[in-house]
């Protein structure tokens, strides 16, 4: 780093100057019919900032999500822009093509919105309520577990192994979700337990 640049100085230079000068002072003179030269309003002004981590690879770039509405105040929040966090030691504000387009993931047209079920042999999903979905799933789980869990092996050793239902954990969930998932899955005796680490 042989170049020492005061970024603050840059900021001053790029914009400041004769402070008294205003657009009005120059008037529109010969070009009254035309729209005066202007730059777009800075769209992040007066938005809510939230620190997050990019959901893709494990460089784990720091990001700032800009929203209208503030969750911490109990409001609905709609994220409208995502940008790199310049303070983050690794990415220093930069983002890759995936990270720079995170907004389109958040607002993807193909996000799942409602619990759905596809009945055996059907060619379509049907919308159901959370209660219906969860009750049905746990029913199926219990029926399978009760029928198939191996309590003891041939040698009589307690093995508590449930091999007929499997669980594939995510790769983008938090450590906390992972831990909760671990607890639930392990407590049931599911052994076909895996995650994306292999793939």
């Amino acid at each position, binding site marked *: 780093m042989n170049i020492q640049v005061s970024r603050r100085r840059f900021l001053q230079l790029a914009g400041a100057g004769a402070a008294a000068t205003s657009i009005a002072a120059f008037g529109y003179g010969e070009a009254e019919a035309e729209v005066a030269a202007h730059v777009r309003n800075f769209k992040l002004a007066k938005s809510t900032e939230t620190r997050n981590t990019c959901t893709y690879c494990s460089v784990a770039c720091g990001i700032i999500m800009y929203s209208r509405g503030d969750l911490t105040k109990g409001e609905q929040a709609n994220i409208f822009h995502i940008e790199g966090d310049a303070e983050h030691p690794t990415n220093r504000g930069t983002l890759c093509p995936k990270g720079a*387009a995170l907004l389109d993931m958040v607002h993807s047209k193909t996000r799942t919105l409602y619990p759905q079920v596809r009945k055996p042999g059907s060619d379509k999903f049907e919308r159901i309520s959370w209660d219906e979905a969860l009750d049905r799933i746990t029913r199926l789980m219990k029926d399978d577990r009760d029928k198939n869990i191996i309590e003891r092996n041939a040698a009589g050793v307690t093995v508590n192994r449930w091999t007929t239902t499997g669980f594939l954990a995510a790769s983008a969930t938090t450590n906390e979700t992972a831990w909760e998932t671990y607890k639930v899955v392990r407590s049931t005796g599911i052994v076909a337990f895996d995650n994306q680490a292999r793939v």
Partner: protein
Amino acid sequence: MTNSWTDIKNTDLVVIMGGNAAEAHPCGFKWVTEAKHNRGAKLIVIDPRFTRSASVADFYCPIRQGTDIAYLLGVINYCIQNDKVQWDYVKSYTNAGLLVDERFGYSDGLFTGYDEEKRDYDRTSWDYQMGADGFALIDDTLQNPRCVWNLLKQHVAVYTPEMVERICGTPKDKFLKVCEMIGECSSKTRTMTSMYALGWTQHSKGSQNIRAMAMLQLILGNIGVRGGGMNALRGHSNIQGLTDIGLMSNLIPGYLNIPTERETSLDVYMSTRGFKPLRPGQTSYWQNYKKFFVSFQKAMWGEAATAENNFAYDWLPKLDVPSYDILRAFELMHAGRMNGYFCQGFNALLSFPNRKKITAALSKLKFLVVMDPLQTETARFWENHGDFNDVNSASIQTEVFELPTSCFAEDEGSLTNSGRWLQWHWPGGTPPGDAKSDNWIMAQIYLRLKALYEKEGGPVADPILKLDWRYKDPGDPTAEELAKELNGYAVSDLADPSDPTKIVVARGKQVPGFAVLRDDGSTACGCWIYSGCFTEAGNQMARRSTNDPDDTGTFPTWAWSWPVNRRILYNRASADLEGKPWDESRKLMWWDGTKWTGYDVPDIAPNAQPGEVMPFIMNAEGTARLFSLRGLREGPFPAHYEPFEAPIANVLAPHIRGNPAARVFKDDAAQFGDAKDFPYAATSYRLTEHFHFWTKHAQINASLQPEFFVEISEELAKEKGIVRGGWVRVSSVRGSIRAKAVVTKRIRPLVCDGKTVHIVGIPLHWGFTGETKEGFGPNSLTPFVGDANIETPEYKAFLVNIEAISGPVA
């Protein structure tokens, strides 16, 4: 990663092999460009394709996919032959001098103890010679022919530059140029870093690929130093975390193991763990295994885990096979022995090998539950999409649930990055529709299941009924509550062992770290290596100080790094035996006369005497292992094996197909293809514009790389009459796909063992949902076989045929 992303700036030489950091990890790759710009570092890229990493490399060297071990052992051979060895490091910090069991040997491509029937080894001879004092024998002069160093020397002697050229197709002059550049890093003041990813892991001998480079790094003295290390570039935002927390069939958080059914009791289980030191004075940290295990059991079952019931040891499932990894799971499913399956944000249909088999397997399930923020192909495996998913919906009897989850932007918690940093994040948006957080969904499933058992009873109900679930809102545990469990807390007052009147940690308080964990049930800790992440001082993972003393790239107070906020693993090895840094300009930890000090948290007891306690405390020897004993299934040294589908036979042992210790299911063995039908060596990979099967749902990314394609050389295109932008059909024994052809100078045919080998590159991002054009993926073609140790499928080397076609049919 042993080091961190920001530490890469300290290196002198970056070797990208088995990965493509510029494309898959662009923002991490920044630190390579920084090293180049600030230190004049060089970048070498070794890859079958001239990747975007190669586009900014100082030297690009081609290699045939699946031959990395031959290449790396060739480099090791070069270093040994040309005295490019960091001798002080090798002698002090590796097991080079330890003597190996006389019975151990290697011939005809196999180590001693092979059983062809079982495709496995009897590994008893893979051991040290033990002295009467219970310690391994050593020859510090490295003269004994049975010492690790001499066995290694002998083992790698066959990998001459000529042999490397013959196996890998790498021109000898290019290989030697790489050797020369790498050899320079044996200097104490030059370091090299290895950046790799799934280009090394997705092989039937992935673990050994990595071992080979790790051995080279040890020989060069590059482990534990700034700008060095073995840097695995993990693919997903929290795949490191999920591995750490052990969401795998055979793991307990913090790299502990689920017992096997042979381990009938806690005592039997513990008898093969808690290793005693193999050399005098060494730490052998796994001696603390039981503390971590018991604390884990307490975190699981709380008060129900007592000394009397062996801390609920019996409630853990016991394995009858080494693992129920995804390959085994889908094998079982395919055989009709699996009824239910959950996919928590995972697109199995596109991610697992041999898609036909995956579809058939899923079709045999009674129920499938998919929790995902996006509409995945897996959730729609039963939906007919013409060529892209040609199934008969009516004949598929699986009941499929699609549960909408929130995404990263809408949830709170920590993610562990490649550099082991646990970083907290906050929610900023309202989830769409009825989407719910994974925490809520898992809690709901648990509570409803528990209610069913309470109501109806059933077998083995206790582990479910007595799971410790003391959350403020049991239906929706908060991230903070769960993080505190991961960190661990005192179940009862913890007295100071040296002064029982003094309470170190009061009952109910968060523990400061794993050093205070106990094996008597007085502590609970979900994941011992995460202990320290959320202490009484608060959430360490949420720290945001950018302070970086002396600009080392350590950032000790940004977030929190496991273990104990250590940023560079094995950092004691950054100093010589006396505790003096190898390179003063790049010092990391040093002995100040009374204790270890420096920029990082020492990877050794702070008062461990230099010259006595060796840096690799997790190993019973205290040193790193050039000879890995019984650590890996296919041998204590890596050896060259071809992929299961290879364009040429194994030059060193023609009778061996693939990795002799890799597990192969019977039906899958019948589905391996041969070069006479499928002459081209294919490989699969990510493109920088996309992330797996996610960004095809993001409009911008879809526009940046809209349509599925395969990449071939101009030579192959000419030979097969394929035009740039034209349509091709690519096929293997297991399936066929159609794609656009990208004809490029960036892929060139290689000559291996006298035969011209053409390479076909197949990126992996397309499916039948999302914004991109519908397409296929490599898993329609790839073989159903994994790494011998961790079962990562062999995605990076397989055989295909390719032909020009006129275009999509209808």
